């Protein structure tokens, strides 16, 4: 039997502490610590889906800071862990713990709860209610059986750590999002290669977050560190590389195989209909953490570095997107090939080159491979609740390549954008993967 997310969370919230009071108390305590991380992340994935500002770049930022808060909270009490202070751009050293014993589950719970409450302050009434209830129920579970003074000290430290990380986050350029990230006005370019709006949604007549590429990065030096070569020159000549790329999108779109269609939908991860592409990779990591019963410190470190890699990927990708401002396939195909053609997927409201899914997937594969190894086979049940079947992969890179090509199948990216996006993600992810988190 496979437990769904709702059941897993219910189990995490309901398991009585009495189970943890036997001889295996330490091991059970580790289980509770891991559940603090994975259960909060499960909620965060839902909050991403249900908070309108959480477009993929914004969500990647939230994942990075939440992961960093969890990891840093543990580093202050565990000499085998290495702080990210001094390694990621601008993060000061973490506040020290008070003298006396701390409980790591309580520290983690407090750090994660406080981070989520700030990063998802814009969520709606159901999200707010869920945050409150999760805080109450998961907090009670973390605190049960623990000395009151230890609880107080641990909760205070977790909150202080969250405040420390969130204060650092304030100045990164991505803290304030208005109108869901869409500028109030926008004048599209007039050259044929320029991106133009493709949506019938009024809000999306301006492109999403045009300045995101200028945000402070985490592990890589700047948003332009992994810059890409220009895309093929726009051309309406059927013999040109650009035209052939557009024609390939069209040809694939009108002859999609069942698996190509499934791949496109599996990785579609549309904002406000899913936890977004970075959320999809977070979901994979959580699934593996639970499957392989990883210790909490390892989970927190992995989530921090994964979040960092993906957040940097969006900054780098967005810098490139707005450097080249390339027109989407649907515009070109309707203009030159078939005015009635429609892509399988919803074309996102921002420039085409490179594919954001590809960049973030490349970065995620780089990080997860560094943590869990090459040829790490896994099943991905992320979209089972949405009635999409489990997809199995032989490695993280196989999954990333599937994600990248899915955008070609979906009719929203040229092949060269997927290929170059993966390369960019690999470059960006390498900076995250090089971070030292264990002594």
């Amino acid at each position, binding site marked *: 039997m496979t437990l769904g*997310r*709702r059941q897993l*969370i*219910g189990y995490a*919230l309901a398991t009585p502490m009495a189970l943890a009071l036997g001889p295996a108390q330490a091991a059970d305590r580790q289980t509770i610590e891991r559940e603090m991380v994975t259960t909060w992340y499960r*909620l965060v994935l*839902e909050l991403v*889906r*249900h*908070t*309108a*500002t959480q477009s993929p770049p914004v969500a990647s930022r939230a994942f990075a800071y939440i992961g960093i808060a969890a990891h840093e909270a543990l580093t202050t009490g565990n000499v085998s862990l290495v702080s990210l202070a001094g390694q990621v751009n601008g993060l000061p050293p973490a506040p020290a713990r008070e003298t006396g014993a701390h409980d790591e589950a309580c520290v983690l719970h407090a750090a994660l709860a406080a981070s989520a409450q700030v990063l998802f*302050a*814009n*969520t*709606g*009434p*159901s999200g707010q*209610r*869920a945050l409150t*209830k*999760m805080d109450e*129920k998961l907090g009670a579970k973390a605190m049960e059986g623990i000395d009151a003074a230890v609880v107080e000290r641990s909760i205070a430290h977790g909150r202080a750590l969250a405040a420390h990380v969130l204060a650092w986050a304030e100045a990164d350029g991505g803290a304030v999002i*208005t*109108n*869901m990230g869409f500028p*109030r006005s926008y004048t599209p370019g007039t050259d044929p290669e320029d991106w133009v709006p493709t949506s*019938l*949604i*009024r*809000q999306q007549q301006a492109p999403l977050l045009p300045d995101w590429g200028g945000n402070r990065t985490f592990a890589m030096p700047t948003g332009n560190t992994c810059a890409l070569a220009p895309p093929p020159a726009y051309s309406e000549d059927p013999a040109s590389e650009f035209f052939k790329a557009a024609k390939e999108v069209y040809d694939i779109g009108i002859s999609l195989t069942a698996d190509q269609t499934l791949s496109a939908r599996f990785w579609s991860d549309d904002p*406000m*209909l899913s936890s977004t592409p970075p959320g999809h990779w977070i979901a994979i990591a959580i699934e593996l953490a639970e499957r392989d019963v990883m210790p909490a410190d390892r989970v927190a470190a992995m989530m921090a570095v994964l979040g960092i890699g993906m957040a940097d990927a969006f900054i780098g990708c967005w810098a490139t997107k707005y450097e080249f401002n390339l027109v989407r396939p649907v515009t070109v195909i309707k203009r030159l090939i078939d005015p009635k053609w429609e892509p399988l997927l919803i074309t996102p409201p921002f420039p085409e080159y490179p594919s954001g899914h590809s960049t973030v997937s490349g970065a995620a594969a780089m990080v997860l491979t560094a943590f869990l190894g090459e040829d790490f086979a896994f099943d991905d049940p992320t979209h089972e*609740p*949405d*009635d*999409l079947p489990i997809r199995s992969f032989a490695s993280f890179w196989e999954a990333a390549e599937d994600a990248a090509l899915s955008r070609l199948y979906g009719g929203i990216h040229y092949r060269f954008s997927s290929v170059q996006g993966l390369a960019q993600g690999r470059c960006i992810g390498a900076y995250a993967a090089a971070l030292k988190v264990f002594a």
Partner: protein
Amino acid sequence: MIRPIALVLSLASPALADPAIPTFTDETATADLSTVYEGEWEYMAGGGVATFDCSGDGFPEIFLSGGAGPSALYRNRSPQSGALAFEKTEAITLDAVLGAYPLDIDSDGTMDLVVLRQGENRLMRGLGDCRFEAANEAWGFDGGDAWSTAFAAIWEKGQDWPTLAIGNYIDRREEAFPWGSCTDNWLHRPDGKRFAAQIPLSPSYCALSMLFTDWNRTGHPSLRVSNDREYYKGGQEQLWHLEPGQPPRLFTEKDDGWKRLRIWGMGIASADVNLDGYPDYFLTSMADNKLQVLKDIAAGKPDYADIAFKSGVTAHKPYTGDDPSPSTAWHAQFADVNNDGIADLFVAKGNVDQMPDFAAKDPNNLLLGVGDGTFIEAGDKAGVASVAVARGAQVVDLNLDGKLDLVVQNRWTGPEVWRQTGEAGAWAELRLQQDGANRDAIGAVIEIKRGEAVERHEITSGGGHGSGSVGWLHFGLGAADRAEVRVIWPDGAEGDWMDLPAGTFQILRPDAPPEAWTPR
């Protein structure tokens, strides 16, 4: 038959000049409507308004949902063409009410009321003179125990008892993790002159509006369901086949050409906006709203184009104030508020509850049809651009002067009511009545000639957001001195075309001449 040109020109035909701006006067302070839609999370949706005549004087009464507080029925004490005045009754004071729809369930000529609730839904049997009694038990109706947010009704072919569809929302016990907890919608079909055990309409995706509609003019209405994507997993908008004697069956992409759409579906309004003879659907949501028209009528598939953008009805953000944040739309209703013979559109707006990503001061929309398929915003100029937190509403002629008025239920602050007080074009108001079952002819179609075109009005029970009406059906006529109309009755019988004088109330019955009616 070739009609004389002069006659054709005298019938209502769309004008293409800028639409006349109606004038509304806020009479909230004097109309004595006081029921507030109260409550917290469990009442973030709902807030419905029902209008219907239960006193027998032809003037519509108003029922207001009270949410966590008591609901109330208000008798209409307005003089004809005069200031709006209501008297609160003790007739229906249920709590936990989210919405209500009038429906003469037992076809006894006295209006009943379907009340949607947190907990058990209630059927209230009308006893006359605005008295009601609980009728769940007598009618075999299982009110269930859910968070009920949507309703639609139809008389299926051959039945003398209605079929009710009830839409349900989140499992309210899932307070820490409500997403993916949508509970089953229900179909209550007849078993003689009572209801059979309800049938789950599974899968269900947190319905906030439902409407039986004959979208393809087959004579067998289907059930359109608008769902809130905030809470479903794997969901989408839905359309159900409902064929007599057959279990309900979803239209699918593979078998029926249904096209997946995922929105924060909150309300359905329907009208023949483009005069192609088929119903078009306005779907409320957050940010952009949708206006759907059939892409290819001949194909016979439920494949709709969204023309909200080019029609000017996205209504995606506030048009007053300086808040750039997107809007939140709930009840929507097509109606000809300026009597120019062109459908207009009212949309109730209001933040869910302190959602900072969406506008806090979100004015209701009054979008006036221009006649070329586009609409222009006139809520502020007309005086109805309230920024209270609106939910349900009705656009209805409350004082029977031929001009539509407006009542809106707001969350936490109570209702607002506006009387239309300016000049407006000509009008006619009609009621359909038939003997036997389905007295108010739910499922009928009124056709009215608009110049060379014929505009079709489906008579429905459902849609909107928790809000419904049975009563006079209002038609603007512009400068015309009469309306040329006919009725296609629910059994498919086509009535004769009739010339009805402007400025009159007419009761239409099958195989009978129109009967003029005068307010007293």
